[in-house]
């Protein structure tokens, strides 16, 4: 019971304090990779804390046994002990119900998001493969469109797409910069991080609205990660100039939280970025603090130490 209370307390504190701290933090922008880890770590640790709290409420104590049969027997006797006391039984049922709801919600969200992703990708890919030209730039699809756009389709059959407009308004160096940025997204598998953030946000944002913020911030930071990767091969100024040449477009709700809004910010960051040495330390410390409860929970599950039976 005590551990359940502590875990729920952690979940509440973390979800109210940490997001604000991360948004204001300078180290997050200076080392965007660590920033992404921090945001995702925060989300996952809060989820883990809630799940562990439900588990510890419903089963009193858990021990990881090597034999599944012994484990099941232990659960059954544990449950039987719980049900002996009327109060215990109610808490057990509540805990199990909530746990079931959490798991079901997560699975539903994963299925919905996954299906939409696969469908969208399939449609866009088959259109692109026919409509775009492959013989203009090696390994890049070119759309005959006068506005300057660049994007990538990440995943197994990854594709980088640019428009004719982009090829005509940017210098060769700048085109290289944009391509390097898109390829970094593909190479570093950013779409997987975004998918995970999207599934969690879709599942639980009705009860935890800050998850939407976590998703947006992660997308924004991933753009900066790709910028950093591109800068390594082409230089900051080239990338910055390339970004300034991109077309002004209609802001839509869909893209508002992602790269569309981030471009101005990315430009500023590329212009003024200084090496903030303590950033790494601060970031590492934050990540350790955020993940401490996860270790605590894992230790509980493994040794049944902290958990006290009802």
């Amino acid at each position, binding site marked *: 019971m005590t551990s359940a209370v502590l875990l729920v307390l952690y979940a509440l504190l973390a979800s109210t304090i940490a997001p604000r701290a991360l948004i204001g933090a300078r180290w997050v922008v200076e080392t965007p990779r660590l920033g992404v880890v921090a945001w995702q770590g925060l989300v996952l640790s809060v989820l883990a804390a809630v799940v562990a709290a439900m588990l510890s409420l419903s089963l009193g104590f858990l021990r990881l046994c090597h034999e599944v049969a012994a484990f099941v027997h232990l659960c059954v006797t544990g449950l039987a002990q719980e049900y002996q006391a009327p109060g215990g039984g109610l808490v057990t049922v509540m805990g199990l119900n909530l746990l079931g709801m959490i798991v079901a919600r997560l699975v539903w969200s994963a299925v919905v998001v996954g299906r939409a992703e696969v469908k969208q990708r399939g449609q866009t890919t088959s259109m692109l493969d026919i409509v775009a030209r492959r013989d203009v730039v090696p390994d890049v699809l070119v759309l005959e469109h006068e506005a300057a756009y660049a994007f990538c389709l990440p995943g197994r059959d990854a594709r980088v797409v640019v428009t004719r407009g982009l090829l005509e308004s940017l210098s060769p160096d700048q085109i290289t910069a944009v391509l390097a940025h898109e390829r970094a997204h593909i190479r570093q598998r950013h779409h997987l991080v975004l998918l995970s953030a999207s599934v969690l946000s879709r599942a639980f944002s009705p009860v935890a609205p800050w998850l939407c913020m976590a998703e947006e911030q992660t997308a924004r930071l991933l753009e900066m990660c790709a910028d950093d990767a591109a800068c390594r091969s082409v230089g900051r100024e080239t990338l910055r100039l390339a970004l300034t040449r991109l077309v002004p477009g209609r802001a839509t709700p*869909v893209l508002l939280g992602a790269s569309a809004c981030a471009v101005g910010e990315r430009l500023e960051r590329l212009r003024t970025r200084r090496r903030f040495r303590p950033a790494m330390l601060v970031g590492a410390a934050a990540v350790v603090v955020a993940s401490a409860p996860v270790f605590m929970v894992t230790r509980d599950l493994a040794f049944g130490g902290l958990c006290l039976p009802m």
Partner: protein
Amino acid sequence: MRRLGELEAVVMDQLWSSTERLTVRHVLEHLERQPPLAYTTVLTVMDNLHRKGFLRRERDGRAFRYWPTKARADFTADLMDEILSGSGDRSTTLMRFLDRMTPEEAASMRRALGD
């Protein structure tokens, strides 16, 4: 599957650059492939393209004559519209990696650069 998609692209290239309505035989003869493709392969590809809405066709004796439903530019415009507006109720990850700016950002940037 990837190779079939490539073949579809090559066939559409030919049809888009032609002003006439073409038969399968004509397309096959103008495809420079070593080893040459089978008639049935090209027939299947063009039939698929018709099914997917890229081509229209009319009977000409025993065979069909095919032509594109829309110019390449129109397909491109439709595709760009779809990508930019983010079809579906939630954005998917592929939409996220689109690089562009809002008019407000562009304006403020031009001001900052003293354009």
